[in-house]
């Protein structure tokens, strides 16, 4: 299905359809920026990486062979540019290490028997949809920004951008298991970061 969408989009892009390109940019630019930001120090460095990425995408469109989805291809280009930029900044990004905090740190509510001492705090839901309340949704991106870099990039690619697990493993050179561990820690920590917003209000 995604491949069919891609085919259509690709035809339009290659034909010089400006509307298609604009849509494509609007759709991905901000996600690219968020991912770039996990690699480089400053917003302006991230902007530069994203701009380089778009130009590389434009130049590469005619040669794109659709062996991956268009979106994954764009993120692969971004990742290469961002890594180069991070090297320029002499910045180490420890994506494949798992020595980041364990989620159990954020869930101290277990007794010695491993059961909840009291039921965990509940996050408010949206009355109309299966989402968090509007108020909590406003704090989601801040919570993601506060994560350690590996967790942050994995949750961004998986849950915000919506890439699938295989693509993320490949992009970040992670094993299946490590990808899931990082994703899980990220989600657990984001949830835990939202809890005080619920508790402080009451």
């Amino acid at each position: 299905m995604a491949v069919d969408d891609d085919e259509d989009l690709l035809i339009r892009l290659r034909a010089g359809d400006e509307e298609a390109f604009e849509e494509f940019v609007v759709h991905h630019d901000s996600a690219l920026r968020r991912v770039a930001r996990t690699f480089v120090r400053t917003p302006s460095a991230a902007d530069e990486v994203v701009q380089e990425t778009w130009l590389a995408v434009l130049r590469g469109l005619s040669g794109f062979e659709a062996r991956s989805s268009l979106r994954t291809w764009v993120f692969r280009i971004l990742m290469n540019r961002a890594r180069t930029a991070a090297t320029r900044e002499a910045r180490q990004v420890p994506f494949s290490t798992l020595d980041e905090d364990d989620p159990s740190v954020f869930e101290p509510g277990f007794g010695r028997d491993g059961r909840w001492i009291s039921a965990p705090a509940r996050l408010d839901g949206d009355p109309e949809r299966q989402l968090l309340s509007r108020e909590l949704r406003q704090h989601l991106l801040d919570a993601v920004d506060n994560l350690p870099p590996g967790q942050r990039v994995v949750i961004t690619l998986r849950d915000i951008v919506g890439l699938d697990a295989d693509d993320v493993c490949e992009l970040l050179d992670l094993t299946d298991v490590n990808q899931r561990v990082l994703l899980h820690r990220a989600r657990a920590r984001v949830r835990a970061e939202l809890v005080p917003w619920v508790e402080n209000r009451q």
Partner: protein
Amino acid sequence: MPLFRRHRHVDPLVCREFVQLVSDYLEGALPEDQRLRFEAHLAECDGCEGYLEDMRRVVDSLHAVPLAPPEPATREALLRAFRDLRGG
């Protein structure tokens, strides 16, 4: 070894373990016997049921996060580059 597996199999899952397995469950990555233990615990523990629902909402809400469109200047510059490449 088989004895050990058998013992593990009947071992009920506790909340701490449940919390650690939530993403594996949501990713469909739990082996069958683990998944059954997970679901058995889920059916009898309100705390864990709530935790799982919240985690689902976190994930779904992240999917629904509205991302800001690029600055008009950025958009313009990219469109120009797009045109130039087509023309050139």
